[in-house]
């Protein structure tokens, strides 16, 4: 399997991805309050929409989209990630969003595939 060093190697653009993510979050949980019944479908739609938008960009990446929605009650939340990959082509981006009643943390990881 020959690899073409065409010089056209795409690397992940975290800014673009973070814009996509922010729009998706706003669209789904923009003006609502935390609700135990609905949070399940919120997280599912956030990850699904984000993933479809990212795929529409047509770049040669595998994506992992992770979303955590937590009710605001004074408790603390930490996330960390560690990745073993090719640092020149792969990347990640994390977006934190909040409103009056909840926090939402979305992480996107993009892993390049060889064409």
């Amino acid at each position, binding site marked *: *399997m*020959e690899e073409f*060093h065409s*010089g056209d*190697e795409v*690397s*992940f653009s*975290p*800014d673009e991805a973070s814009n996509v993510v922010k729009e998706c979050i706003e669209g789904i949980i923009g003006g609502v309050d*935390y609700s135990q019944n609905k*949070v*399940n479908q*919120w*997280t*599912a739609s956030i*990850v*699904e929409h984000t*993933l479809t938008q990212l*795929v529409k960009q047509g770049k040669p990446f*595998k*994506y*992992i*989209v*992770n*979303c*955590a*929605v*937590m*009710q605001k*009650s*004074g*408790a*603390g*939340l*930490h*996330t*960390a*990630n*560690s*990745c*073993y*990959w*090719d*640092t*020149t*082509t*792969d*990347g*990640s*981006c*994390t977006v*934190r969003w*909040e409103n009056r009643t909840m*926090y939402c*943390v979305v992480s996107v*990881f993009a*892993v*390049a*595939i*060889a064409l």
Partner: protein
Amino acid sequence: MHLVPGHSRTPSFPLDGIKCVLESFFIMANQPLPLSQETLAQFNRSMSTEPGASGPPRRRLGSISTRRSSKDQSKDQPHHRPLFLRSMTLPSSESSFLSPTVSNSHISMGKRFSFAGWHQGGRVSFSGLYLQQPIQEVYVENTYRMGPEPGCRFNASRTQQILQATLDSYLEGVCYSPDSCSQLCQMLADLVLSKLKDVNPPRYKVVCQVVVGQSGKQGIRVSSRSLMNPNTDNYTSAVFHNHSLFAVALVHGLYFE
């Protein structure tokens, strides 16, 4: 190799399957050079040009760790920046293509470089720091492999056991504390990654994420979706909670040609 005191050496990355690139000596002024991360960030900032991915691609299997906590929104670190930094250490026995004509090329770029000294054929950056030897490109032969070998897939159940065992052993009896938990979270992610690197089959990239939170009366939901090849790739997760904290760990294994 002489380094300015106060700058930490970058860790050396595993060399299996790495393609190194021969760096041309007629380098553009805005191309990132192999320096330690702090000096390179400084260099890039002072250049005030985008450190793009120009030039021949350099493939590195390296670890990148990040940390995010819900409270510190004000400190938005430029978290994607380290991806453009290609800091490498090399054995000093690599031959160097240093030639006297390099000084002309630098000046022609519009920047004046001061060549403070040439110890062991080392190059000097504009700030007077010694640079490391250029990276030699290593061409790897074709393996004509289309997928992972039969016994070499990402083993989800074994990974899950390792993940669960790590979480249980590490977080047994730990109490949540806002100051220390962000470091705990990061340490856990790195620890899981190092354990997985040992059992990982070759040609697999690993993404590991850990969420740690205080156990209160709040509700939380963590969900994940990914676009990957179901024949070769997989993921696992593990959850731990005690009276004061909870932790969720997610690991994805992705096959790479």
